[in-house]
């Protein structure tokens, strides 16, 4: 019996070590760039990091990222001046673009098609409007030199907060413990493909034993709930605009009118906020515009978004 357990344990350890080497050699696991909070209390990536991002199993989507001096994924540095023409894209993971090679981003596509323009992509996964407006406000000097700013906005996700506060949950991922865990590539890989999900579920179940059994029923939203939510979100929007400022001449929202409530669209129109709609162009495409395994734009989708922004820009 002792021999059985000893040998089984030895095999498990040796196999795990070999798997770690195999995962590293075949690049199956993604690199996790380090986050940090700068002197303006803005959360971003630590400058000058390179690596690759992997989505899905068997390198289904494999791309390179390049974090520049400003802490964002881009092939270029962000050095605006009053002599040049610049366009900034501010947004979440869709603008951050870890699903694409950094040299094939929306910004690069715009630059390739629109001569004499520099595009700065201030994208960071998880940014909402509070993050975005706080960033613009904190880096006012920089953004004042940029000719036009396009801000990504998803009504349902981005207006939950009425003021900016650092998201501590995300920053906890930079603790020494998590960093150590992330250095084990086999663990990161198995986590990403869902092998460890049952383990977390089981741990959750075990930890809830003995606690009061709260029955969490997902209630269907009533019309009143939805109305209240809309009102709250619009109030949050107003609060954010008031707190961090908004240059209506230079700033434009990028949104999907199909998932944005009419009441908010009316509010934007009535108050002279400009927006670019992505819905019509994406929806009329005959080819798929998103990746198969998640909702981020694929190369064709990014082409369309770049064209929409170019067309809008030309009209300005």
């Amino acid at each position: 019996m002792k021999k059985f357990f000893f040998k089984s344990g030895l095999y498990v350890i040796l196999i795990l070590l070999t798997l770690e080497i195999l995962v590293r050699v075949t690049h199956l696991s993604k690199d996790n760039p380090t986050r940090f909070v700068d002197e303006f209390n803005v959360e971003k990536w630590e400058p000058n990091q390179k690596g690759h991002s992997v989505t899905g199993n068997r390198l289904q989507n494999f791309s390179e990222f390049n974090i520049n001096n400003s802490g964002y994924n881009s092939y270029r540095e962000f050095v605006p001046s009053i002599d040049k023409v610049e366009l900034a894209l501010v947004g979440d993971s869709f603008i951050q673009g870890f699903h694409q090679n950094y040299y094939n981003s929306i910004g690069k596509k715009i630059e390739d098609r629109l001569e004499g323009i520099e595009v700065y992509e201030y994208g960071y996964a998880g940014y909402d409007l509070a993050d975005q407006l706080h960033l613009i406000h904190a880096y006012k000097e920089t953004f004042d030199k940029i000719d036009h700013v396009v801000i990504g906005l998803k009504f349902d996700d981005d207006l939950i907060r009425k003021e900016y506060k650092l998201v501590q949950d995300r920053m906890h991922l930079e603790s020494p413990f998590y960093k150590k865990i992330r250095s084990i590539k086999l663990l990161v890989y198995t986590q990403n493909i869902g092998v460890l999900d049952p383990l977390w579920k089981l741990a959750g179940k075990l930890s809830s034993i003995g606690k009061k059994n709260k029955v969490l029923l997902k209630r269907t939203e009533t019309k009143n709930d939805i109305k209240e939510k809309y009102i709250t979100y619009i109030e949050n929007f107003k609060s954010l605009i008031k707190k961090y400022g908004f240059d209506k001449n230079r700033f434009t929202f990028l949104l999907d009118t199909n998932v944005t409530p009419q009441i908010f669209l009316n509010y934007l129109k009535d108050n002279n906020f400009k927006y670019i709609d992505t819905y019509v162009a994406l929806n009329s495409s005959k080819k798929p515009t998103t990746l198969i395994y998640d909702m981020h734009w694929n190369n064709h989708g990014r082409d369309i978004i770049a064209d929409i922004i170019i067309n809008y820009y030309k009209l300005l």
Partner: protein
Amino acid sequence: MVFNSLEFFIFLFIVFILYWFLFKKSVKKQNILLLIASYVFYGWWDWRFLSLIILSTTVDYFVGIMIDSNNKSSKRKLWLWCSVAFNVGLLGFFKYYNFFVDSWIDMFSLFGYNMGSTWTLKVILPVGISFYTFQTMSYSFDIYYKKLKPTKDYLSFAAFVSFFPQLVAGPIERATNLLSQIITKRTFSYNQSVSGLKLILWGLFKKVVIADALAPIVNDIFANYSDYSASTLIMGVTLFSFQIYGDFSGYSDIAIGTAKLFGIELMSNFKFPYFSRNIAEFWRRWHISLSTWFRYYIYIPLGGSHHSKWISLKNITIVFLVSGFWHGANWTYIFWGALHALAFIPVFLIGKNKIYKDSIVGENRLFPSIVEVFKIIKVFSLVTFSWIFFRSESIMDAFNFIYKIITDFSFETYLHPKGYRMIDYYVLLIVFVLYEYIIRKDERTPFKFKSKFTRFVIYTLIIFTMLLFYDSSIDRSFIYFQF
């Protein structure tokens, strides 16, 4: 609780420790532990169905005693019929009731009578009912045929009926093999346990890598067959051949391996059936425990092949039809059984049904001969064709599927529904077939290599491939659970 889940491995570890550390000195205690573990394992799905197992166990336990205690043939037969009526009745109600009602209504509607389907019931099919009812019936049959003495130990008998490694999808064990092991003292064997772990690993590979990886492709093609070209449909059903083999033989390997960890040897259920050189050999290698069950308890009692050719043909046809119907309450399964009967009968008539009884493909050679390769391809094509009926939702779907292949033959490139490269799957299957060919001599030792290093490399590659083809979004239950 399914074999390919975290809960199962935690459960297995706990039961293993208790079995060999706490209860190793007493067979009775070990059997009580096995019984409780088996009921927990089964109750994990739905504890209410435990009552059916307990009922079936109790009925056959007493029927066995009653058969043995009676010397009069008519009384023995009567008690045997009690067991058959009870178990078949259980199956009939839970599995076939709605099928019979619907078929009855359909038949009347052919003659213009329109009957409302108000008699059908919302019955949930208890997991593994077809397996454990057949296992308990075999006990009564064996006592009736005087091949076995009934046990007076109810707990051991209950542990035999519900033995968790093979409870929900077989192998369907005969009491002469399993019960005799359950009532005798088991001692821990290092070699047996290691061999068990190896079989579990190989079974998991077949399930996770072969069956689960192919499932989204097969599901997509069969669900949307009218949208695909003939080449895609042929590919779909071919992949299903591998999916169902990986799924069911993978389950059997895990079951046999798990039983080994408890010092119990289960019968083999699959012996590389896709390397068969005729359909008779295929049925000697595919779902062996069910085939032997039908041979012992239906084919031979009906007269087997000891009477005229016509009676033999009738018996063969009955066995294949019943075998098809055993799989599910749908005409597709009956048709599948009928197709196999049609394929088997010519082989039987020319007397070649036993020619490959004791040999394997490429015997004493590295490679199979050209003739053998052609024979294997022929049998595989035939079996694959029959899977169209097995896998289709309805008999009409099956015929439409075939009609599309015949009348609309064209080639197209198939794209994986989740965006993966299809070439990965083709390479995987080629490597899998080659590996199965290498190990074809013994289905119970999938890693029979002398070099420890070679074995270690293979274990690592198998686990690595399992990770590569793991898909958290798919339903990971086993196909045969529904039967």
